[in-house]
């Protein structure tokens, strides 16, 4: 079996002296949706930030498409094909939607109008508001802008840190539909989610993290079916 597209193995590290990650492994294949769930303080967001290079790892290795990127900064990882949507402060509020997307494409030297058209196609709701300041949009639309901004570099791996935090259930379903659509174009998705049940429903792979380490790893549907996981993490 070929090694997976993204592979982050045995990650250990944290922000200060104490480690938050204690041997966490995450892998995503091309076009797969991988979801990280787990209780509060399990290190879900930290694990994703470690994959993105926002955290110094004491141990462990991150490879993307077979290339070792463990030593690279987040900016360099963006150039290697990673796209990251932070949980909060993920847009430029006083800039228009269109300018947000342009800033997403800042590192691109080529013509990015096609990509922008694709993003607008994916999110028709924000396409209508391209001249409006992103800060004036609704919560769900802001998230769409944030995802759109990250897509502008044409990433091969898109990472989303709790994209549905603070949006209504309807908007959440809509957003998940879009994410599935993105994955269908061949982009791998790695996502941290609070709404574990709904997220696992669309997940090809699910990781249940506890205290910075993998507790359960399986396909989304298998995890949903596992009575142990259901009882402990999905509230029955």
């Amino acid at each position, binding site marked *: 079996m070929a090694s997976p597209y993204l592979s982050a193995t045995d990650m250990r590290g944290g922000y200060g002296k104490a480690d938050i990650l204690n041997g966490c492994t995450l892998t995503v294949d091309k076009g797969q949706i991988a979801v990280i769930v787990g209780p509060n303080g399990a290190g879900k967001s930290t694990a994703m930030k470690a994959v993105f290079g926002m955290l110094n790892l004491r141990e462990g290795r991150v490879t993307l498409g077979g290339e070792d990127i463990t030593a690279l900064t*987040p*900016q360099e990882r*963006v*150039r290697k094909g990673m796209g*990251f949507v*932070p949980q909060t*402060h*993920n*847009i*430029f*509020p*006083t*800039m228009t939607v269109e*300018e947000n997307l*342009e*800033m*997403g494409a*800042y*590192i691109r030297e080529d013509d990015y109008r096609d990509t922008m058209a694709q993003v607008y196609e994916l999110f028709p709701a924000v396409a209508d508001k391209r001249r409006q300041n992103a800060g004036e949009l609704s919560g769900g639309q802001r998230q769409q802008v944030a995802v759109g*901004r990250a897509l502008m570099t044409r990433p091969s791996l898109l990472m989303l840190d709790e994209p549905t935090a603070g949006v209504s259930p309807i908007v959440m379903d809509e957003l998940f539909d879009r994410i599935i659509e993105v994955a269908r174009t061949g982009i791998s998705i790695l996502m941290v989610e609070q709404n574990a049940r709904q997220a696992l429903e669309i997940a090809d792979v699910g990781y249940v993290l506890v205290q910075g380490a993998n507790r359960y790893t399986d396909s989304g549907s298998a995890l949903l079916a596992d009575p142990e996981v259901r009882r402990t993490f999905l509230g029955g």
Partner: protein
Amino acid sequence: MDILNALVAILNFVVIPAASYGAQLALGALGVTLIYGILRFSNFAHGDTMAFGTALVILVTWGLQAIGISLGPLPTALLALPIGIALCAVFVLATDRVVYRFYRRKRSDPIILVMASVGVMFIMNGLTRMTPKIGVNEVRFDDGARFLISVQEFKAWTGLNEGLALRVSQALTLVVTALACWALFRFLNRSRAGKAMRAYSDNEDLALLSGIDPERVVRLTWIIATALAVTAGTLYGLDKSFKAFNYFQILLPIFAAAIVGGLGNPLGAVAGGFIVAFSEVAVTYPWKKIAAYLGFQSDGMLQLLSTEYKFAVSFVILIVVLLFRPTGLFRGKSV
């Protein structure tokens, strides 16, 4: 006829002086607000940057005059301005490299950067004071024609009692400010580098993620702020006169203008400059004569505040905004 006289008097004593003063404040406040938006601190050295840059412009002006170059009816200083801006920008960039960058990298508290700007202020102040032939003196460096419209001409044309004067320096201030604002807003809204500046001001972390080079943005900000400051200082000096201490004092109305408009918001800074200037002039102008034209005779001067208290006007505006709308009229950054 009296109504016309009153209007001309208002135009002559209130509108024209306030508009040119407001334009000068607006340019200064734009610099303050840009630095605030990008570097996230209130630059106390801004007034002294204006003074230092203007002193350089004056020196270059004298140099040009000495070799017989002039601009005819326009002041030679206009020709010296780009050179003065370039020299001053080199100095300011050096201060960023030596002083501010260290704290930026450490992500120090903004107040530490403010404190560092006080140190830079001292040094620039000392350098201005030591500049040969300028120092702490009052210097006039305007040459060329003085008036676009003179009082006598105006009276002869219109037959009104009240005269109206438009000095070249005032007209120049308005024209240059309009051009500078047009260029700046075009740059910020249209160009890639300008958008990168706005993005960095909006959300620093996301800008970094998007691959925007922070050092480049910061350098660009210093250069633009310096260009605006030196332009403002030169126009102010042409309009009134150059005296280093006055440039330190103008810091207060400039800060007031930037805060009124919302710190970090360029459009607000321009509006704030005019709000502060018009309030200052309107409050300190004796309205007796104009009231008389309109049929109100008064024994008093009808002056709300004596001119010595013009800074109180900026202060009161500042306080009112802080009390009722701390983020400014145009919603700047609150943190």
